[in-house]
């Protein structure tokens, strides 16, 4: 009869809803990685010499590096020679000029994901640069953005159309030597997004990219670069889902944000890569390097992430606060269910005077999942008057999962103010029974309780995505409460 543990288990046991594969011809390079493959990628994309050189430098450095294993993660070793490093929908030369020319199958795929591209674009006023496998196939609202002077395009277009900007900023926030995965990405990245907001411009719409891994065994190496010039504002949303498959897929993205004086970048992520099945088979390995630099006075960078997918998540969106009075923020909801493992958090590096950072992290663990918050707050000797507030809450569902918190704090200036609060709670049988006794289904009850727990992060998401995030959370925890 009634309510609890088993029901919760069965609730959390739900299948991934976005598991399907679109049948589109792909132009795929055979598995393996050497300098020739990198030259091939660069050639296929028609890149200038400086970029090829940069890729090769990164590759040669990567060869000297070891895969890091300090995170609280366990997985079978990745065979980097078994991965195909390039896959593009065929006939790139005949790329569609408008949505009408886009392969209807592709549009249908977006529909299944609940992302009706044209509708969303028109109704929500969102520009979508849709990345499908490794090459962008549809870009909307370019004109309106162009009028404002905003550049928002696939990375490969930026390579051809804005090489000077690219050369000036690429790798200046996350250098090609930064870490193992960033070095790999620098060598083999295929596409991503490029954004430039000119001085004093407030970007007239949310910029949004939906990522999706599609071809089997194709690693995804996205690279995103966002530059907000002095006094400009931009809000960017990255959302992803991936189809179901058995082999693990590597995803090693790099995102670089540059905020100049008085600029404001809000970067929101909804990550829903395939997490593996309820037995821990399959799923995406997600090793991501995301970092922003506040380079001028009063600059502000805000990361908001809702991480529900991937078998492995290794991700620490960070802020380097160089400019005086600059502000860094990190709002995170990380959900790990079944056998998912998440090791995520942030780094706030205070360099400038009176810099301020806020970290709100909500970790939810269910099933057999392990969820780790790892965060660094570093106040350098130059950062007089720096302040940080950190709040880290963990919610456990059932007794087979784990929540871990590793906060690192390094303070080199006596005037710094650093606050840290942390809680761990179990989703209460009392809370659940209370909702059931009011007629709510166990599933709705769990969703409601979890949404309440995440409220302070959700309210940071752009309005139109908050609902989507909430739905995603509900889907992710279906069959997982215990």
């Amino acid at each position, binding site marked *: 009869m009634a*309510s*609890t543990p088993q029901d919760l288990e069965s609730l959390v046991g739900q299948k991934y809803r976005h598991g399907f594969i679109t049948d589109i011809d792909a132009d795929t390079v055979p598995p393996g990685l050497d300098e020739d493959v990198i030259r091939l990628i660069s050639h296929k994309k028609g890149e200038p010499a400086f970029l090829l050189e940069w890729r090769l430098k990164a590759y040669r450095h990567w060869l000297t590096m070891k895969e890091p294993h300090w995170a609280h993660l366990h997985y079978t070793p990745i065979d980097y020679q078994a991965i195909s490093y390039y896959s593009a929908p065929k006939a790139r030369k005949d790329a569609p000029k408008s949505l009408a020319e886009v392969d209807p199958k592709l549009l249908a795929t977006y529909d299944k994901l609940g992302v009706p591209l044209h509708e969303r674009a028109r109704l929500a006023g969102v520009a979508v640069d849709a990345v499908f496998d490794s090459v962008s196939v549809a870009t909307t609202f370019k004109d309106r953005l162009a009028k404002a002077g905003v550049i928002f395009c696939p990375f490969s277009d930026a390579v051809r159309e804005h090489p000077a900007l690219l050369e000036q900023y690429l790798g200046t926030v996350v250098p090609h030597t930064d870490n193992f995965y960033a070095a790999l990405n620098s060598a083999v990245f295929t596409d991503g997004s490029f954004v430039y907001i000119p001085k004093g411009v407030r970007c007239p719409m949310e910029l949004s990219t939906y990522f999706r891994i599609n071809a089997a065994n194709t690693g995804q190496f996205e690279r995103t670069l966002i530059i907000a010039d002095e006094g400009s504002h931009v809000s960017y949303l990255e959302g992803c889902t991936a189809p179901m498959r058995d082999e693990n897929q590597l995803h090693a993205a790099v995102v670089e944000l540059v905020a100049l004086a008085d600029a404001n970048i809000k970067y929101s992520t909804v990550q829903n890569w395939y997490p593996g099945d309820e037995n821990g088979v399959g799923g995406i390995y997600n090793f991501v390097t995301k970092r922003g630099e506040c380079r001028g006075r009063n600059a502000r960078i805000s990361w908001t992430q809702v991480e529900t997918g991937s078998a492995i998540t290794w991700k620490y969106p960070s802020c380097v606060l160089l400019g005086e009075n600059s502000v860094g923020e990190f709002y995170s909801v990380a959900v790990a269910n079944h056998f998912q493992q998440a090791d995520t958090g942030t780094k706030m590096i205070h360099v400038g005077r009176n810099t301020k950072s806020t970290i709100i992290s909500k970790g939810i663990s269910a099933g057999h999942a392990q969820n780790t918050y790892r965060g660094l707050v570093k106040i350098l000797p130059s950062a007089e008057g720096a302040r940080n507030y950190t709040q880290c809450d963990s919610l456990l569902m059932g007794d087979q999962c784990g929540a871990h918190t590793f906060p690192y704090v390094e303070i080199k200036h006596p005037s710094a103010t650093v606050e840290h609060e942390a809680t761990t709670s179990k989703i*209460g049988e009392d809370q659940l029974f*209370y*909702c059931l006794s*009011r*007629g709510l289904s166990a599933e709705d009850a769990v969703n409601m309780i979890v*949404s309440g*727990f*995440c409220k302070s992060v959700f309210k940071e998401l752009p309005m139109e995505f908050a609902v989507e995030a909430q739905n995603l959370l509900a889907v992710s925890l279906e069959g997982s409460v215990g």
Partner: protein
Amino acid sequence: MTMTPPASNPPLLDIRDLVVSVQGRKVLNGLNLTVRAGEVHAIMGPNGAGKSTLSNVLAGRADYTIEGGQVHYHGEDLLSLPAEQRARRGLFLGFQYPVEIPGVNNVYLLKAALNARRLQQGLPEVDAFEFLALVRDKMKLMQMDESFLHRGVNEGFSGGEKKRNEILQMTVLEPTLAILDETDSGLDIDALKVVANGVNSLKGPDRAIVLVTHYQRLLDHIVPDHVHVLAAGRILKSGDRHLALELERRGYDWVLEEAAA
């Protein structure tokens, strides 16, 4: 009190020989109770008598083992229904210690609860305007400030506020059978009157109320038709409202002795 012939007024709640254990310990041991529509029952008894167990078992909490007996509600086998189905069929439990659910809007939970009940009744969902009008009306009755609507469920509420919130929920949901578990505990005399008003507003020929309480003072404001003494896991004695007054005067020991004799 008027007694209607059983044929035209079958029991709303019929508990027969109910035996319940918690972690191997028998808490209810052959309990019998019949409640008909239109009635108010008070269940009184010493601490540890099984009062809260009875409330929780009727509402469908899972931590109890039913060892024997039957419970019928509207003629249906109540114990086979999950908790949410019981609620949707009009059974309401007013909690002794209402739990806090941080970040979940009070009004949001209440609306979801009402719509779950309406769905079961084959009624359309209430729209936001209708719902707010209804809730505001009931909040006036409960003398609650509008700010309660937008706070987290019981989040940071005082003990008295939590109890008012329970009764607010009850008046909005209009249950057929309301079981109020020590709703009076922790209330000052003014709050007690407000809560009693709320409960009395629900009385009607189609509903029944079961008050689980330690004290007679609640019964000054909500007059019961039947008073039962629950002790040692059974109803040891039943009577009318005068029994409550007698218990107030003499305590419970004499009932236990009488039962043992």
